[in-house]
């Protein structure tokens, strides 16, 4: 069965420090992979996506993610975190075909210390 695992429930980093949020998936076919961010009281916003091609993808707000097929991972990174990055981050796998939907991880809550 398809699944997405985000091992870290909560992470705290200092402003200016680097960040890596982990995501592992289980899916039999070539995955479509997404990272979404949810700020308090807001809906989810797409940060970046991987469909095919270059395994290092760039997103908005200075984020990037690397798809590693051998590790079934799609970790999110940012070299220098800003206080405004404090939010909930969700990794998701897209199920292809007519029944198009996303399989979601449980999310990682990011806190940023000044």
């Amino acid at each position, binding site marked *: 069965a398809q699944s997405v695992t985000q091992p870290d429930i909560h992470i705290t980093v200092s402003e200016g420090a680097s960040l890596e949020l982990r995501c592992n998936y289980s899916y039999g076919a070539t995955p*479509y992979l*997404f990272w*979404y961010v949810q700020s308090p*009281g*807001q*809906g*989810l*916003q*797409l940060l970046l*996506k991987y*469909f095919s091609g270059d395994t290092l993808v760039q997103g908005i707000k200075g984020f990037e993610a690397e798809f590693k097929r051998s590790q079934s991972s799609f970790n999110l990174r940012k070299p220098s975190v800003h206080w405004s990055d404090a939010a909930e981050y*969700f990794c*998701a796998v*897209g*199920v*292809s075909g*007519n*029944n*198009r*939907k*996303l399989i*979601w*991880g*449980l*999310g990682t809550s990011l806190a940023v210390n000044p």
Partner: protein
Amino acid sequence: EAGVAQSPRYKIIEKRQSVAFWCNPISGHATLYWYQQILGQGPKLLIQFQNNGVVDDSQLPKDRFSAERLKGVDSTLKIQPAKLEDSAVYLCATTELTNTGELFFGEGSRLTVL
């Protein structure tokens, strides 16, 4: 381009009362999803429409939840009667027919059941 519109943003009701949420998708987006997001968890798919037809409602509690998408545009999600455990944010998301899973979310409707 206007985003996904949802209303109301907030609703407080007592258990056993009824409530309805409304969603207006991005123009031209054929697929519409309703998600339930309980505090501290990832989104849970309730129902997926493609135009005005239901694609997946396997996780919709049909004894109390109903949804419709007349004319394949706007959608409403109704809960009757509400239970305490229905307290959550209800997110509407839409996508183009040919999309591989990238969703565009509204800001959500936060329901509190007392």
